[in-house]
């Protein structure tokens, strides 16, 4: 048998092995719960999903994108031609030269991979098998370059005594083993699982969507088990999605809890889920950054064993450190939905075990019994407005705008925002009303903490109350309320047009109904994007437009817009209060101070409270509505 024939056999064997391993891997996913996917549609959309949706994310890291275009583009092209030339034995000088070109491209990509991993390697990148990858890429590329030279007419066909031929064969075999045979389990798993994940994505509607797709699926409260206890409780395509993780650590870099030294690293969380699912059962071979403050090698799990617990794959402190800010999801080039997994895991902890730390149990209890987070009576929601004579929308009445006040109505700080908003609405002669004591908590906090029973109860009753009144739009100064009503209520049967107050105010300014004066001098302003307005609802422009309308000297923090950093106030994190080395709001405030701005503009009651809680010399915290009111009254 010739060397050429041998490489054909090796390729065939590698494909066979790879295929077998892929089936074995798929059996792991099949252990998960059923999920409805677009089997064919997903596959057909794959090129667009990959080249448009996913590439859009990858391209944020230009180096990685160029590297990946070369390495992956070269590899995928080369594999197809390699199979034609070396497995099927098609003889064509043109094909051979095309193949050489593709392999050269791949080698170039491999060089950049090598440079990144062993040059100035970002801390977020995992080591382990991934450190082998540049060499495997080189092996494949250079192996098949050597093996293709005769086909290109550059060298004579190799004999068994040809050292070039032998080297080519050895490298080619190495390359085929890593890149093809071991694809479903080695570092190349990301390509295999990633492609399928993209085809059968758990939030398929996210692909190509203009606005973030973030609504959660309500828990079936009649099910035998509520939430996710073991890996097998995840839907199968969620298990598949975990396998897509390329361990690039962009999530880790974006995670506020990780930055604050709380025991959470989204990358490790996904890797722990992978290891629990695939039978490795331990995190011992994980080669990335640990959960801050926790050693690697202590976690154990199995496909049918509980995921969360002391000594299990994921410690409860990890689960409860998450602020649900979605920075990880926003950054993930594989489009993995970390936060969905967190909420699924929390649901089991809360609904089946009642295991929720810190002050969260009291708050959930209040939500169940008093319909407010703080346990204050519903009748007190308008206390702050006793002198404002707000119209309370009674059953059967109608108005243009329904002002949803939220829990912030009980908070002295946020009452200032609400008072400013009311004055602005009055100045614009808007037709608005409030629900008064009929407004219950939207249930958002309960939902983020995993207590979907409480969320559903509140949502159902709110929807009933809203059904008895008519209004065109709902406006709120609380992005958590906004998100709940806009994205979570539809699945409960409530469909409303919901606006954030900055969106409405921007509309009023643009329409000439509010005429702010330009600020003359004064402190520069930096705007802090609330996660639930930006990443959850895609609105980053309206608040900035308002600041521009008042003539603010606007400065941007390094992290802003859709890539803003959380204040630490989301997902019930202030209640679960998992200790870290620093406080998230302190970190965020330092970023604000770095801009030299004297004012941090906020647009969320949680952000206001978290950032105002930062002690020491710091920029002042003002809601956009407060700043706008100043400018509008300054003009009057």
């Amino acid at each position, binding site marked *: 048998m010739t060397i050429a024939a041998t490489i054909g056999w090796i390729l065939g064997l590698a494909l066979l092995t790879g295929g077998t391993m892929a089936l074995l891997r798929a059996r792991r996913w099949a252990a998960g719960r059923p999920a409805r996917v677009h089997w064919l549609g997903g596959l057909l959309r794959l090129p667009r999903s990959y080249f448009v949706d996913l590439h859009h994310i990858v391209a944020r890291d230009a180096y990685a994108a160029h590297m990946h275009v070369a390495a992956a583009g070269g590899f995928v092209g080369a594999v197809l031609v390699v199979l034609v030339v070396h497995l099927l034995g098609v003889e064509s000088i043109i094909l051979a030269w095309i193949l050489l070109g593709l392999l050269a491209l791949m080698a170039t990509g491999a060089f950049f991979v090598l440079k990144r991993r062993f040059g100035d390697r970002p801390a977020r990148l995992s080591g382990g098998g991934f450190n082998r990858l540049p060499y495997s890429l080189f092996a494949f590329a250079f192996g098949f370059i050597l093996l293709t030279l005769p086909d290109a007419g550059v060298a004579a066909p190799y004999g068994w005594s040809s050292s070039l031929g032998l080297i080519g064969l050895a490298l080619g075999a190495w390359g085929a083993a890593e890149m093809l045979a071991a694809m479903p389990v080695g570092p190349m798993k990301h390509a295999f699982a990633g492609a399928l994940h993209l085809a059968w994505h758990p939030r398929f509607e996210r692909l190509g969507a203009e606005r973030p797709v973030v609504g959660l699926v309500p828990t079936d409260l009649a099910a035998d088990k509520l939430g996710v206890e073991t890996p097998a409780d995840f839907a199968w395509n969620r298990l598949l999605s975990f396998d897509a993780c390329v361990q690039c650590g962009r999530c880790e870099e974006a995670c506020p809890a990780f930055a604050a030294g709380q025991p959470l690293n989204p990358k490790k969380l996904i890797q722990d889920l992978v290891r629990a699912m695939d039978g490795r059962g331990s995190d011992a071979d994980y080669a990335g950054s640990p959960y801050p403050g926790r050693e690697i090698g202590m976690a154990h799990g199995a496909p049918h064993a509980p995921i969360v617990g002391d000594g299990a794959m994921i410690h409860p402190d990890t689960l409860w450190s998450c602020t649900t800010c979605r920075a990880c999801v926003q950054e993930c080039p594989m489009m993995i939905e970390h936060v969905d997994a967190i909420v699924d895991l929390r649901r089991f902890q809360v609904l089946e075990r009642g295991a929720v730390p810190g002050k969260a149990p009291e708050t959930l209890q209040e939500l169940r019994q008093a319909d407010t987070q703080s346990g204050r009576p519903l009748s*007190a929601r308008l*206390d*702050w407005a*006793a*002198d*404002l004579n707000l119209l309370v929308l009674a059953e059967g009445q109608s108005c243009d705008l329904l002002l949803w006040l939220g829990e912030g109505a*009980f*908070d*002295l*700080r946020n*009452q*200032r925002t609400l*008072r400013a908003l009311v004055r602005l609405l009055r100045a614009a002669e808007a037709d608005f009303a409030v629900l008064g004591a009929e407004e219950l908590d939207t249930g958002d906090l309960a939902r983020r903490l995993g207590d979907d029973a409480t969320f559903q109860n509140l949502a159902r009753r709110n929807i009933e109350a809203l059904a008895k009144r008519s209004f065109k739009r709902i406006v709120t100064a609380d992005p958590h309320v906004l998100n709940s009503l806009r994205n979570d209520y539809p699945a409960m049967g409530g469909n409303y047009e919901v606006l954030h107050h900055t969106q409405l105010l921007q509309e009023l300014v643009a329409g000439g109904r509010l005429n702010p004066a330009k600020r003359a001098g004064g402190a520069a302003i930096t705007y802090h994007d609330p996660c639930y307005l930006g990443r959850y609802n895609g609105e980053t422009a309206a608040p900035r437009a308002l600041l521009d309308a008042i003539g603010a000297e606007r400065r941007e923090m390094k992290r802003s817009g859709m890539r803003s950093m959380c204040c630490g106030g989301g997902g019930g994190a202030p209640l679960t209060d998992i200790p870290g080395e620093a406080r998230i709001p302190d970190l965020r405030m330092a970023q604000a101070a770095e801009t030299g701005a004297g004012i941090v503009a906020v647009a969320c009651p949680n952000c206001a409270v978290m950032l*105002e809680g930062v002690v020491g010399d710091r920029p002042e915290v003002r809601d956009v509505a407060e700043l706008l009111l100043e400018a509008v009254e300054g003009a009057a």
Partner: protein
Amino acid sequence: MAQYEALLEPLQIKGMTIRNRFLSTSHQPVYNEGGRPSERYIRYQEEKAIGGIGLAQCGGATGIAPENSYHYGQIDGSDDSVIPYYKELSGRLHKHGAVCTIQLTHGGRRERWDSSNWLPTFAPSSRREPVHRSFPKEMEEFDFERIRQCYADAAVRCREGGIDGVEVTFASLTLIEQFLSPAVNHRSDEYGGSLENRMRFGLEVLARVRKAVGDDYVVGIRLPGDELLKEGLGQEECVEISRRLATSGLIDYISVVGATPHDYIGTAKIWPSMWLPSAAFLHLASGIKAEIDLPVFHATRIVDLATAERALADGHVDMVGMTRAFIADPHFPKKLREGRVDDIRQCVGATYCIDRVVVGHDAVCIQNAATGREQTMPHVVPKAEKPRRKVVVVGAGPGGLEAARVSAERGHDVVLFERDGVVGGQTILAGKVAWREPLSGVPRWLDSQIKKLGVDLRLGVEADADMVRAENPDVVVIATGGRPNPGYFKGAEHCTTTWDILSGRVEPGEHVLLHDDQGAETGPVAALFLAQRGAKVEVATPERKLAVELGECTFPAHLAELYKAGVVITADHRLTEVYPEGNKLVAVLRNEYAQDMEEERVVDQVVAEHGTLPNDEIYFVLKPHSRNLGDVNLLALAANEDYRVTANPEGTFELYRVGDALTSRNIHAAIYDSLRLCKSF
């Protein structure tokens, strides 16, 4: 941050929605003229509404009958011509979200017969009233009927004037309390004797008022929780009165006070200065609240947020009266809402305000010179439209601190020199006896404000003219205060000053004569300071009484403390000579009236108080270099117009003197000097 939720919770009483629990109880700052609310009075109340108050109870002791006098600037509510004024008052308060009541009061024997209409005073019995010194006429049946109808008519006028409710005074030892109190009511008919009889007149008045205003109008009363008076109403009887009134169905709330102004010491208790502790009578209100189902209001020395919140949150009261707290800072609730709690100027309990009122002067706040002067003085100093200027202030007593604060609020660059290591000037000495310590709040607030405003405060630096000029100032304010002056008599050099004593520079002697020829607090404070350190003290004054400059809310406290400490007080004697004899001093006291009568005292120490002499050296060095040569157009200043004088066009800066650096006065004078000059910088 604490939320102060109880304070910010609304309260509904019938149709009256009170937006929060901040209350200013009815009082009379003596701004009105001719029994009609003046614009000054309305602006004063309106400022509290702007500042976010819930209920501004107005019209303190509003008269209802022709015999009521307007000695304290009360409103005359006894005829219909008052109604348009009520409309103006209520409209201005409603505009800013506040509600208001008027307090209807027949003073009974607590009036003067020799003013207003020159009619006699009336009371249940004819015994003399000690404070107003009137001998009242005992009421006859037609007096009862007339007065009942006067109450009803006056209440209807309030309702017609848009006032949200009326408060009928059952307190302050005015007519109805004169019936309630066995110390005053000595009748033997159906209006005297048993509690039922003593309550009869009050209930008749309430029934008549209720019938006149209707069931939906708010009618409340003000009542003592304990008269703290021998033979007067005790706590149990006051609780019983509350219970009976509450179940009568005639009233909607009870506002509780402690003590009764039967005499001077009673006056100093019902409107107490810092002499009484914080929330001194809260327990009395709480005791009544526990027994009745109506809202209970209460005010007395509640000056801070924490105490007010606790009084509400713990269920002691339903509305917390912070009347003097609002005089010190009418924007109290607004600042709380805006998260500027540190900016609240807290009442220190100096009681300069009421002390002036009880002797018939207009109320002004010792530390906030804008209160009661809203027409001319700003509570919020606006930024200057002109370019930034350099202001140098010398001296960080209250006047200098206020000058620095106001100048900085104007947006100017301010340098403040202070010779000592701390700010406060003479207020530090003035607070040297324990019960006067709260006075330190005056400089403390100013200090916190100037720090916030970025004033360049240079402590421990005694500025001279060269240092001031080296700053290239546009304006220089000399607030260097004064130095003690023992007075003008032979042998003054043998005397110690009150400052030496209070500052601890000179140890107290064993036998001490203190000569007070100033008449305000300094003499009594130094005397008490000496006595508390073991000295045997006699205070002599050429005046008819000690502390002649102080009013009835504070001088009784000083006198009570002095007598308790064994101090001997000698009035009508002027110190004319001091000379040494052996290791003693002989002090010669001449009778101020029988001037040929002299007494001698042989003592170890003579302390002499005669105000201060201005520290004006730096002023006179700077004067020739200034543009105005130190002058101010006083006519313009008094008229709140441009007071600038250009006497020396070559001068490079304006030069002003404030406070005791000008001449010996008091804290308020120093602060007002600074505010009215600096607000125009």
